[in-house]
């Protein structure tokens, strides 16, 4: 019988614009882009130039600090543009799709018979290794370590997040092959976290994994929270995580020998006409969704409202993202908005009467709803972080640059997305995720 873990802390931001469970096919995007800057600290070394022909799985660049980790093309076609930013930093490698999808052949194989090194080599070459994330530091997995455990979350509890059980229906065998591949990489266990209140039929038959059931509000679906409650990261421990949709891609690599990074993406938010699911490849251009976005001043997010990147409609699906959210911008001043809000807004504070309507769905905008202030209110972050971590003290240790305190207070156990609700609830409007990211960068460099 699976382990049941009940979490009380957290908060579900209920929003308008949930995707109906229907996968609608959209017009195939013409361009794709892989963006090195999505990964903190990644310095790419290009393997292609403008005009290079690529197939699905052809290398585009590798990481300077991890030369064996390749980032490969999600589509077949021609490299048409390399976008650079300040100091010639590479921002995007753009590919014009040829509309045919020809694949590099990495050879189908049973991961168990390949063994650890064989699996590793195939993943590195095909570009799948980059989807393995390592904690602490939330970086791409190091190739020369054996992780203590590998964690996978089988549900996404973020606002309007896709139903992964629905998204992966029919891909059970790929998931199983993916798990078998991961099993060769660790001497520990592979943990799968499931939502105990939802349908888990897609995952019911999976073997070779230890299943834990979680119950509770967001961030229960965050893999970091699940790690904390199942087998917390201690000093010196390394664990890996992978998004479950990428696990299916990994399975397909071993089953069919190809890199086919197609995901089921939820197109959500109040500013989307008829929110639905659609299939997209990593790095797909979002311009094919333009007709679905309502007119007006809209923010488009690759990811969810608590952890996502602001993009424009001609930009691309993020490397790890499985959701697109569109909400109105909130750049209009609001008369006495702190006292008499012009429209209902989600809040954990009971000073808003809408807390009496717990199932009300909101049309949120991106307004800060107040100005930045020093830390004043206490027991606010603590209400939304279901971990035995003191978030304010941790953030203050980071601000003070105190490496020892950061470590002692558990910085190795959290990554940016775990504290995103803390940033949401903050009365003083502190940039919580940025502070944590600075802390992680600092301790990775100095620690």
């Amino acid at each position, binding site marked *: 019988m699976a382990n049941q873990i009940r979490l009380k802390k957290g908060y579900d931001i209920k929003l308008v614009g949930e995707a109906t469970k229907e996968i609608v096919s959209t017009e195939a995007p013409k361009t794709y882009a892989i963006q090195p800057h999505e990964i903190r600290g990644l310095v790419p070394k290009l393997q292609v130039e403008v005009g290079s022909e690529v197939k699905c799985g052809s290398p585009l660049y590798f990481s300077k600090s991890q030369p064996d980790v390749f980032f490969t093309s999600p589509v077949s076609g021609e490299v048409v543009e390399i976008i650079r930013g300040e100091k010639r930093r590479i921002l995007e490698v753009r590919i014009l799709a040829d509309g045919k999808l020809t694949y590099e052949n990495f050879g189908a194989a049973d991961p168990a018979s390949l063994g650890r090194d064989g699996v590793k080599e195939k993943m590195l070459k095909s570009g799948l290794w980059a989807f393995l994330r390592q904690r602490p530091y939330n970086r791409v997995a190091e190739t020369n370590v054996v992780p203590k455990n590998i964690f996978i979350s089988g549900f996404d509890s973020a606002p309007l997040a896709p139903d992964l059980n629905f998204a992966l229906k029919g891909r059970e065998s790929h998931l199983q092959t993916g798990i078998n591949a991961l099993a060769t990489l660790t001497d520990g266990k592979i943990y799968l976290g499931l939502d105990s209140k939802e349908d888990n039929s897609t995952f019911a038959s999976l073997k070779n994994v230890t299943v834990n059931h979680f119950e509770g509000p967001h961030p229960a679906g965050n893999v970091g929270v699940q790690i904390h409650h199942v087998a917390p990261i201690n000093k010196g421990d390394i664990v890996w995580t992978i998004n479950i949709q990428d696990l299916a891609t990994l399975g397909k690599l071993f089953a069919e020998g190809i890199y086919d990074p197609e995901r089921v993406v939820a197109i959500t938010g109040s500013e989307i006409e008829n929110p639905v699911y659609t299939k997209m490849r990593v790095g797909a251009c979002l311009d094919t969704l333009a007709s679905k976005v309502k007119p007006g001043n809209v*923010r488009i997010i690759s990811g969810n409202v608590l952890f996502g990147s602001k993009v424009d409609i001609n930009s691309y699906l993020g490397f790890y993202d499985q959701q697109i959210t569109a909400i109105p911008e909130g750049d209009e001043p609001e008369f006495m908005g702190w006292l008499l809000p012009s429209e209902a807004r989600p809040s954990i*504070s009971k000073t808003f009467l809408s807390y009496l309507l717990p199932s009300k769905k909101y049309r949120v905008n*991106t*307004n800060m*709803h107040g100005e930045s202030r*020093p830390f004043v209110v206490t*027991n606010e972050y603590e209400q939304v972080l279901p971990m035995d971590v*003191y978030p304010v003290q941790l953030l203050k240790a980071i601000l003070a640059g105190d490496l020892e305190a950061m470590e002692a207070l558990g910085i190795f156990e959290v990554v*940016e997305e775990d504290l995103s609700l803390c940033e949401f609830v903050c009365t003083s409007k502190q940039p919580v995720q940025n502070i944590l990211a600075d802390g992680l960068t600092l301790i990775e460099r100095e620690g």
Partner: protein
Amino acid sequence: MKFLKDTIDKLRPNFEKGGKLHFLHSTFDAFETFLFVPGHTTHGKVHVRDGIDLKRTMFTVVIAMLPVLLFGIWNVGYQHYLSIGEASTLMDNVLFGLIQVLPIIVVSYGVGLGIEFAFCQVKGHSVNEGFLVTGMLIPLCLPPTTPLWMVALGTAFAVIIGKEVFGGTGMNLLNPALTARVFLFFAYPAYMSGEFLSNGSAVWFAGDRALMVDGFSGATTLSVMASGGTAEYSMMDMFLGFEKGSIGETSVLACLIGAAILIISGIGSWKIMASVFAGGFIMGSIFNMVGGTPFLDMPAVQHLLIGGFAFGAVYMATDPVSAAQTEKGKIIYGLLIGILTVLIRVSNPAYPEGMMMAILLMNVFAPLIDYFVVESNKKRRLKRATV
């Protein structure tokens, strides 16, 4: 609304860098953001923010203080007419109270905000909302007869020494309002804890000894108890607040209404409030067991009703900046405040009001309490690693 917005937009260039009135930019900013929540949008990976901000938080606390303020105003008038033996209507009491109390509030806000704005101007900070609460707390914890210059002096001391030297809102070690109170208490003891001044005017109610009816005492229950007497009020009167005392402190009922507002809105910590009351009751009960003097024998519950106990527990101890910041720490902090208050009251007759001392003392110790709570978390993590 449009007109207002346009006016502000027209005025703004004067206050921006290079403008004629740039030296008043913080002031302009404070008023502008009071009228219009700025159209600033999120710019990280978190795209939405909770509707609450510090303005709303502090405003909720001000609302929670209204019951004690309104009752205090009425009671100032009531005590005055009682002392001269005249019958008075509700309106009489309120009018008299307003005349006494409003100037104190105006001075407190005027002086405090003036200094706060000046500091923000010089340091280039935006004006914080913390003083909205402090500016109301200071009048509420003073006797109704406090001279206005004294209010101004106490407020200035609180804002400068209690807050700004530490870096402003959020950085201070001590509760600023109590800093004002304790400064005045030590600087002008006769005005803060005596019964009558040398000119014959009473301290705890607005009146003159010469005009008082026979048998009306000038002392508060606390000072009566401290000097070995017995309380002149019934428990019910003390609970409802029909007694002499500082403007806001007399009515436990009004404090409890305020507490309910703070707790239901989630702004004030119920853990601190409950543990302060529990601490006071425990220490009172221990003294009851010892017994011997009228003060030692005073029922433990009565400790919670007299003086500024309830007021301190609800409004002063719960200040999130100067209180303990961890949830476990808050309980220890509250318990110790309750215990110390009763201990100081009973064992040190020189300081009849122990609440103020106890809270300030625990403000100083709050970081230490948090330190131990946080250390235990660190130890837990370390232990997990070595097992």
